[in-house]
């Protein structure tokens, strides 16, 4: 490499630093999963990508991503490690970070083929004792998705198929399989977290329908409805407050983005059937 060329790069780099240092505010650093639609992917196609762009725009800057698969240790290795300043989705009761106000409330839904006309809504529906049911699996000790726990509590285990939430990470949209399994007839019904269900139902060749799981809280305490917030590092109250203000101010755009991705809502917008 010639020294003149190298100097050219050095000057260009210096110019870039200067712009960042004295011009525009620093980028909004977001930690995100590079392959987890409908939430996010490296091409920026998920609704959390769109929300990150919206928040960055409001802050007068751009998004800088730190990509990291959302697995055990995600928060520790990303937000807490200082690799970014915000993550776009956590339950509002999340304790490992400082959460914003909730920006949507969704629910687990039963996904079935429209042509089957099953219309299952209740965990106590007797047909769940014989139909083949797909549930999302987590894998940590004692942990599982609420429908998996609720079915096991009712002694329903032999007709339940598990789909890891991580899916096959080599494939695009690894979380999709539990919805496709309904379309393909691999299972009769799947119990799926709302945003995942809404998005992949829309992409399905076979018409599918989603109905909210009831009861919303299965006694003694098994919630099927969750408020979702963004999160910043503990102590970063200033950024949290600025994002909270944006969530207030840009509510219509945020609702439009969630509607565009068919996120089933229980908080007024796009209520599920």
């Amino acid at each position: 490499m010639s020294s003149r060329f190298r100097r050219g790069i050095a000057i260009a780099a210096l110019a870039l630093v200067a712009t960042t240092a004295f011009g525009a505010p620093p980028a909004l650093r977001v930690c995100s999963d590079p392959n987890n639609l409908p939430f996010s992917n490296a091409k920026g196609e998920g609704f959390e990508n769109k929300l990150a762009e919206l928040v960055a725009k409001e802050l007068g800057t751009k998004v800088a991503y730190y990509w990291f698969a959302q697995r055990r240790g995600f928060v520790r290795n990303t937000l807490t490690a200082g690799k970014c300043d915000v993550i776009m989705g956590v339950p509002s009761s999340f304790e490992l970070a400082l959460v914003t106000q909730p920006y949507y409330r969704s629910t687990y839904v039963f996904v079935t083929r429209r042509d089957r006309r099953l219309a299952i809504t209740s965990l106590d529906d007797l047909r769940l004792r014989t139909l083949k049911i797909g549930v999302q699996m987590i894998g940590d000790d004692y942990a599982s998705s609420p429908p998996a726990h609720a079915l096991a509590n009712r002694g329903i285990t032999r007709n339940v198929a598990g789909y890891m939430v991580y899916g096959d990470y080599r494939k695009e949209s690894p979380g999709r399989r539990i919805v496709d399994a309904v379309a393909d007839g691999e299972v009769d019904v799947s119990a799926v977290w709302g945003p995942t269900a809404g998005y992949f139902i829309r992409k399905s060749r076979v018409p599918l329908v989603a109905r909210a799981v009831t009861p919303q809280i299965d006694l003694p305490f098994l919630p099927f409805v969750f408020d979702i917030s963004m999160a910043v590092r503990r102590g970063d109250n200033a950024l949290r407050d600025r994002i909270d203000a944006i969530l207030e101010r840009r509510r219509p755009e945020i609702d439009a983005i969630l509607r565009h991705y068919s996120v089933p809502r229980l908080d007024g917008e796009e209520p599920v059937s």
Partner: protein
Amino acid sequence: MDEYAFRPIACLVSFLLIFNLACSTPPEATQASGASSGKASGKATLPAFTTVANEDGQWLSVQKDYANTRFSGLSEINLTNIDQLKAATTFSTGLVSGHEATPLVVGDTMYLVTPFPNVLYALDLKQPGGATKWVYRPDPDPAAQGVACCDVVNRGEAYHDGKIIINTLDNHTIALDAATGQELWNTKLGDINRGETITMAPFVVKDKVLVGNSGGEMGVRGWLTALDVNTGKIVWRAYSTGPDKDVLIGPEFKPFYPMDQGKDLGVKTWPPEAWKIGGGTVWGWVSYDPETNLIFYGTGNPGPWNADQRPGDNKWSCALFARDADTGQARWAYQIGPHDIYDYDAINESILLDLNIGGTKRKVLVRPERDGYVYIIDRTNGEVLSANPFGYVNSTAGVDLKTGRLREVESKKTHVGTVVRDICPAAPGAKDWQPSAFSPRTGLVYITHQNLCMDFEGVEANYIAGTPYVGANVKMFAGPGGHRGEVTAWDPAAGRAVWKIKEKFPVWSGALATAGDLVFYGTMDGWAKALDARSGAEVWKFKVGSGIIAPPMTYRGPDGKQYVAFLSGVGGWPGAVVSGDLDPRDGTAALGMANAMADLKKATTRGGMLYVFSL
């Protein structure tokens, strides 16, 4: 019927009458009530195929030998001069995650593999201070770090006929020319995208390298794979779940207990198809008996299903296998923990010994198990000869030696949404992977282990891969006595502890025994220690830079002197508070371990460093 059946009642009665703490008094009280079929006499001895007389001063396998003794015949360093043991040299790995590997010494070279990114260093012991001969960097996929469940550890290397063999976290087994570091073959065995990783040390038997997978929490189906040591080609793979043909169960399979007999139990003991992602990973130790040509190893916990979702025994998770080393065909199996609900993986070491029982020599294997019992098992047929507790246990009530079945304790059974307090041992068990050592001079097995219990409290909402989920709120804490670690000298012939040392933190290092009648181990707050193998008296200690969670080793250097090596670098499951910089205010972090280890941050800092000691 043995005494165990009456224990809870006896405890209750004594509590009501004299209000003492007999029921929670640790090990000494429980040891007396162990079950045993036939009395052993004399002391445990090494099988004929391991001849300590031939000690050549090398350390060629992480577990030292086929029998997994971790015993060296070197005796230059002994009780008369141990007070003169001093640091001779050090070597930094520059990494801050948990270091669980034992270095090997082959001729004049030491080989050391690091945690992720699994760098292999060859150190020239002829040079003053030990100069780097060559370095091999496999550059594993960084995404593998997100898949590993409990720190990005690696448990060591293997050596065979001029080759050094390592496993990488992203599922490669790689053979290198031991002299040059040149890659000879590189075989990919699994896929991080399906949740698989590899953390165990390869184990070489004759011309085969044995490697198993990790990731039981991630929806993985466990396996042990044999590769041709010369080409890296896969020769056989034995799955831990599924139909007999996948588990390599055929006509030669003769399990001792009826509970382990039957066709396709790896399918039938699960809800339909649950076995396909049923866990039973293989990430611990393998031993080998050349006389019978059998290998022995155990499998991990059933997963990723919650226990209530998988009624049945869930075979062959938490099970011990004996297989033909050439074909992989199972000869017998014994499920140590049918339908495990506590995460008691059965991956611990099997130490191959001979015992004199009722006047006859029995070829046995000795397993200090995660469930808290030392299992003495006839290695020719899988019969459990005894199973006595070496730590405090209340989650089960011993082993029924007629059926081979672990006795469950109804009041300690967990269900998400319920509260169960004081489950002992906690999920990592009374002992995790950290390997024990055996000295033929004392006839004792030296077990480094933990003393942890746990509370299981209702539900906790969490979030992963975009999905909110519900898990139990688990918190671990010190067991009876208030200390979290122990070193126990166990007499397999008598079926009881001879002495015990208490340590503040879990003893996660494993042990080394030598012909100098010394037992070496390390502590999580960074003390390298030596004990008198007969009395347990502490005879030497040295403070290293970071907590020790790697098993120590010893060798004779090119200068003819004996050296002892400790790799420090805290981490692993109990050390995640430090290596992962967890917030100790969140007691449920690291699956509830953070609650028990909050003060480790004040006791040590992270960073990998090898310390070599000599007189």
